[in-house]
């Protein structure tokens, strides 16, 4: 196909000499370029009002806080500034505009400031972790060594989080392996079985249960695995046990998100599939799930993002170690959340820096997961898919087919 494609498309284009050249075309009347109307821009008064309100309220706030009232503290200062700003903005606006416009502008200011607040909080979080953790994270050994031979007062150039990254990835990988098929199958069950009366009776309790599980406190998931798998069944504390606890946390999230997208697959597609003689599960496998694929990857990512940061389930089930343990089925295995939890409590500044660098690594891992899933989840246009061998329309078949067409036309 790749060989025939360009040739065909070239053939389809009109040959260059067929197109009228610019010189034979009638010259367009020389009209001046039209000026575009500015739509939805902000005027100078609006900007100045906003800036004036912000500046005025800052001054007033400073006066109140530093000179008049017996208050102190940054948080109160910022909050008062914001409230004063809103009040000043409303008053200044009311002097120029009617009440309706003022309300409109005020609402806009509120919405924008909440958005900026969220952005600021996230920026602050990342910035703080970066600031505290960079001390450790800028040394390469942090990513290539474990903490096995690092004592409490060793310099920052020894020891690292490799064992925790490996543990996190192994546990998350196994938990994904368990929870994604389970979650997607449950979602398919919730959507597909609701159509029969017998199924509908079972669908309701399952959905209630899944919804309840999304609210399950994560420490309970850890306790459950500790009680059932470790204490009762006798599995040792290991990465495997931790991944089971993570599965309990991830499965309901994957299910909920997957159910929404599976339900969105148009019924007409399912009908088309059934009309071709497909059974229900083949319809699900070949039509419903491929159509819902981009949404399903989002569901998987949501589950993984939840799982990778969970601390309390792994705390009870994985144990903790400073050594690199590749075997997820035996012996304690560290993971990034545990690494952070363990070292941030210690009274040595280098250990705390290592913990923050671990947090930085965790965020990077989540970011990589997100990007990967986005790339995988895009609807690949089928032409990018494995290339098809060109259909060799052998002369014989082409001839018979065209003969058939002619015969049919004659018959009509």
């Amino acid at each position: 196909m790749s060989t025939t494609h360009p040739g065909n498309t070239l053939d389809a284009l009109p040959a260059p000499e067929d197109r009228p050249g610019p010189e034979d075309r009638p010259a367009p009347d020389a009209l001046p370029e039209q000026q575009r109307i500015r739509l939805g821009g902000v005027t100078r008064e609006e900007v100045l009002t906003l800036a004036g309100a912000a500046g005025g309220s800052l001054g007033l706030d400073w006066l109140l806080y530093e000179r008049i009232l017996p208050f102190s503290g940054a948080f109160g200062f910022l909050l008062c500034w914001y409230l004063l700003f809103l009040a000043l903005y409303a008053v200044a606006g009311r002097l120029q505009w009617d009440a309706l416009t003022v309300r409109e502008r005020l609402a806009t200011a509120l919405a924008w400031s909440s958005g900026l607040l969220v952005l600021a909080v996230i920026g602050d979080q990342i910035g703080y972790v970066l600031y505290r953790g960079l001390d450790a994270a800028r040394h390469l050994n942090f990513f290539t060594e474990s903490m096995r031979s690092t004592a409490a007062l060793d310099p920052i150039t020894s020891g690292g989080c490799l064992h925790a990254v490996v543990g996190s990835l192994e546990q998350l990988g196994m938990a994904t392996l368990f929870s994604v098929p389970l979650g997607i199958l449950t979602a398919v069950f919730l959507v597909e079985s609701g159509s029969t009366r017998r199924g509908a009776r079972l669908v309701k309790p399952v959905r209630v249960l899944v919804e309840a599980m999304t609210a399950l406190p994560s420490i309970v998931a850890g306790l459950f695995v500790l009680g059932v798998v470790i204490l009762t069944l006798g599995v040792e504390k290991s990465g495997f046990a931790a991944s089971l606890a993570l599965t309990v946390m991830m499965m309901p999230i994957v299910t909920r998100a997957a159910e929404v997208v599976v339900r969105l697959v148009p019924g007409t597609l399912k009908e088309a599939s059934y009309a071709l003689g497909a059974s229900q599960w083949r319809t699900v496998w070949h039509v419903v799930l491929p159509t819902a694929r981009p949404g399903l990857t989002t569901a998987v990512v949501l589950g993984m993002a939840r799982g990778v940061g969970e601390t309390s389930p792994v705390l009870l089930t994985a144990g903790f170690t400073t050594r690199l343990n590749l075997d997820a089925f035996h012996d304690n295995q560290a993971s990034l959340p545990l690494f952070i939890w363990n070292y941030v409590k210690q009274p040595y500044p280098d250990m705390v820096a290592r913990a923050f660098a671990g947090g930085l690594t965790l965020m990077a891992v989540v970011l990589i997961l997100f990007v990967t899933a986005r790339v995988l989840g895009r609807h690949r246009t089928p032409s990018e898919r494995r290339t098809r061998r060109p259909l060799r329309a052998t002369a014989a078949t082409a001839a018979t087919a065209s003969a058939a067409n002619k015969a049919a036309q004659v018959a009509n």
Partner: protein
Amino acid sequence: MTETAQPPYPAAEFGDGTTDPPTIPLPPVPADGAPGGPSDGPSGGPSDGSSHGPSHGPSNGLSGLETRDLTAWFGQRKVLERVSLQMRAGEITALIGPSGCGKSTYLRILNRMHEMVRGAALAGEVLLDGEDVYATGRRPAEVRRRIGMVFQRPNPFPAMSLYDNVISGLKLAGIKASRDERDHLVESSLRQAGLWDEVSNRLGTPGGALSGGQQQRLCIARSLAVSPEILLMDEPCSALDPTSTRRIEETIAELRHRLTIVIVTHNMQQAQRVSQSCAFFLASHDTPGRIVEAGPTERLFTSPADPRTADYVNGRFG
């Protein structure tokens, strides 16, 4: 998975050289006896024999469809009452009538799509070549494979390429086919649907990238790829522009010689143009739908026996 449902296609399409697939008992479709239809084969003979393997039966002996005293309900509401109609093999039968008279329901009963609606029920018989498709133990999937359907709105699978759309029936019905067989099947199905020349150089593009009319022809090709004996069409042109409609009508006319077609349409000119026989459905607000009159299209449109038919075909109501 569908042993009894194995289509005759491997043999029918590329039949002569290859050995017969072992899994084709196909009891209901006798190859040469052709008891089902009155076999007005000769007119269809030359065309369908030439593109298929001429040796095999089902392409020559077309199947007919018949319903006896068909009654249908949605919950407590009766929507069809005692509809008896014969759809002869190798003919195009048009079902006409105003909206809500049960034409589409009737069509969906024919290939067992009706029962997928919750609360749907029915009574009576649907005979495909003399065998009841609602007989106990008969699998709906097998019936649907033999009685294909094209829907009102084109619905190609968006996650598949054109190529995969055409052969999706094989995957969905669990039919194995070699690469060569698939390639040939794609080409012959697209040719039958009159789409091959337009898309043959871009089979890898997604099905949704086509125009509405092309999408609908792709859906027809998809239905044809599993070699159905009957093709049901539920207002296949109502979402399309006149040019695409004409193209599809030509396709339908060409297909007539390969399989039996039942088409629901709101457009009386279309019914007149494409069909050989015609059935007029009518329901009033408190009575369920039933057939007022059925017969050759020519007679129904020129000298209808029932005054209501005359009113409808002349556009006085509906």
